[in-house]
């Protein structure tokens, strides 16, 4: 399976899940969230590609539990409709509110998990490369890649600056006020030199002919659009869900 194919399938899956998030009942959405969490471990192409993204996913599971709990409880508390369904520490929670909360939370989490699952299982440079074959302008692709490069370099830069300022007596290891000042003396060179350097880099790009001739800017072998049945069925399924929902709504 080519990277492009796997990416198209995942994008189609995200589309389907987003359609579900706005159409299906919340119980199905909540179960889909659980399915997604299981899929992260069970389905090979959906596994996180780096330890960092695996950690991000685990962290988000915890975060999502907290968000869901808060959304459900707060709405149960604040929307005073329907019978009192439960009492927490003597505070009454209403049925309609809890249901509203559950609907909101499952929708939010389904949307979020589908995005996150897509990103943790995808290498960003690969994604950008793929999007470029699908017509993403080269300068946008370059901006995204450069951003990743900057983020990559940032810790080392900060360390260098930290050393240089420390050597000039910046009080990095005492009191809160002076630490704030020291923070300033580290962030300023970072921003200043990064801006200066980024403009120099831009000049270097121009000097290597980037965007000189927009019409031939990048000769990318456009991948032959092979028909991938899984991608197509996912998209069709999304359409079906949408149509079903619209019909249901028209009848009602």
């Amino acid at each position, binding site marked *: 399976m080519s990277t492009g194919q796997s990416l198209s399938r995942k994008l189609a899956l995200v589309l389907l899940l987003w359609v579900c998030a706005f159409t299906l009942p919340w119980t199905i959405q909540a179960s889909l969230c659980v399915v997604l969490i299981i899929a992260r471990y069970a389905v090979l192409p959906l596994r996180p590609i780096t330890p960092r993204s695996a950690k991000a996913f685990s962290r988000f599971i915890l975060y999502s539990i907290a968000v869901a709990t808060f959304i459900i409880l707060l709405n149960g508390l*604040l929307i005073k409709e329907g019978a009192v369904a439960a009492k927490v520490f003597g505070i009454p929670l209403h049925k309609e509110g809890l249901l509203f909360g559950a609907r*909101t939370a499952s*929708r939010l989490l389904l949307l979020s998990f589908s995005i996150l699952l897509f*990103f943790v299982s995808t290498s960003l440079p690969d994604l950008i490369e793929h999007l470029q074959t699908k017509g993403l302008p080269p300068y946008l692709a370059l901006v995204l890649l450069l951003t990743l490069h*900057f983020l990559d370099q940032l810790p080392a830069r900060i360390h260098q600056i930290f050393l240089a300022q420390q050597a000039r007596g910046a009080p990095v290891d005492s009191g809160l006020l002076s630490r704030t000042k020291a923070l300033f003396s580290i962030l300023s060179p970072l*921003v200043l030199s990064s801006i200066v350097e980024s403009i120099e880099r831009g000049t270097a*790009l121009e000097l290597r002919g980037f965007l000189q001739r927009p019409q031939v800017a990048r000769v990318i072998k456009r991948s032959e659009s092979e028909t991938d049945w899984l991608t197509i069925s996912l998209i069709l399924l999304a359409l079906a869900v949408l149509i079903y929902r619209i019909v249901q709504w028209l009848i009602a």
Partner: protein
Amino acid sequence: MSFSIRQRITDEMSGAALPFVAFCIALNLTAGQITAALKIPLYLDSIGTILVAVLVGPWSAVICGSAANLLAAALGNPSMIFFIPVVVVIGAFTGFLARRGWFRKWYLVAIGGVLQGILAAIASAPISAYLFSGVMMAGTDFLVLYFRSVGNTILNSVLYQGLTSDPADKLVSYFIVFFLVKNLPQRLISRLRGASNLRAPDSTT
């Protein structure tokens, strides 16, 4: 129309501006992290967008903001993707103000910052009301909670909360950018499109 938008974007985004926009995206992402780590009650996560809006142009700022939110989602915070419409508003509006020369005088910057805050609050309210019912897992949730408990709808509560906190955030962001831009070496900045936004109109001739 689509041609002219594309044309305008490529006009702004000369080779010289690209790495600068990229740096500003990285700045958006890290500024948010730093304020979160230091527990400063501001987001400041649109500083990069504002910087691009002033020094390059509105279209690039829209791209900068959107890309930052997309990358934030990719790096583990998926809900940022829902707020792309908000950063589009911020980028476009700030770019518009900068073109009108609002970043030349401090009082215009102040007014602009507040206006921007109000706009951002209006743009983000429907999103956080509908998708999150106002629960953003942040300190500002208490405000929403308060407004809702005194009988406002979710949308209104989120809007009121936004109107109390966003103008301050954007005001601070605007001033940071204002002073930052003032303290940048003018010789280099002149390589960017929007540098003329900062000069007094009489000196551009």
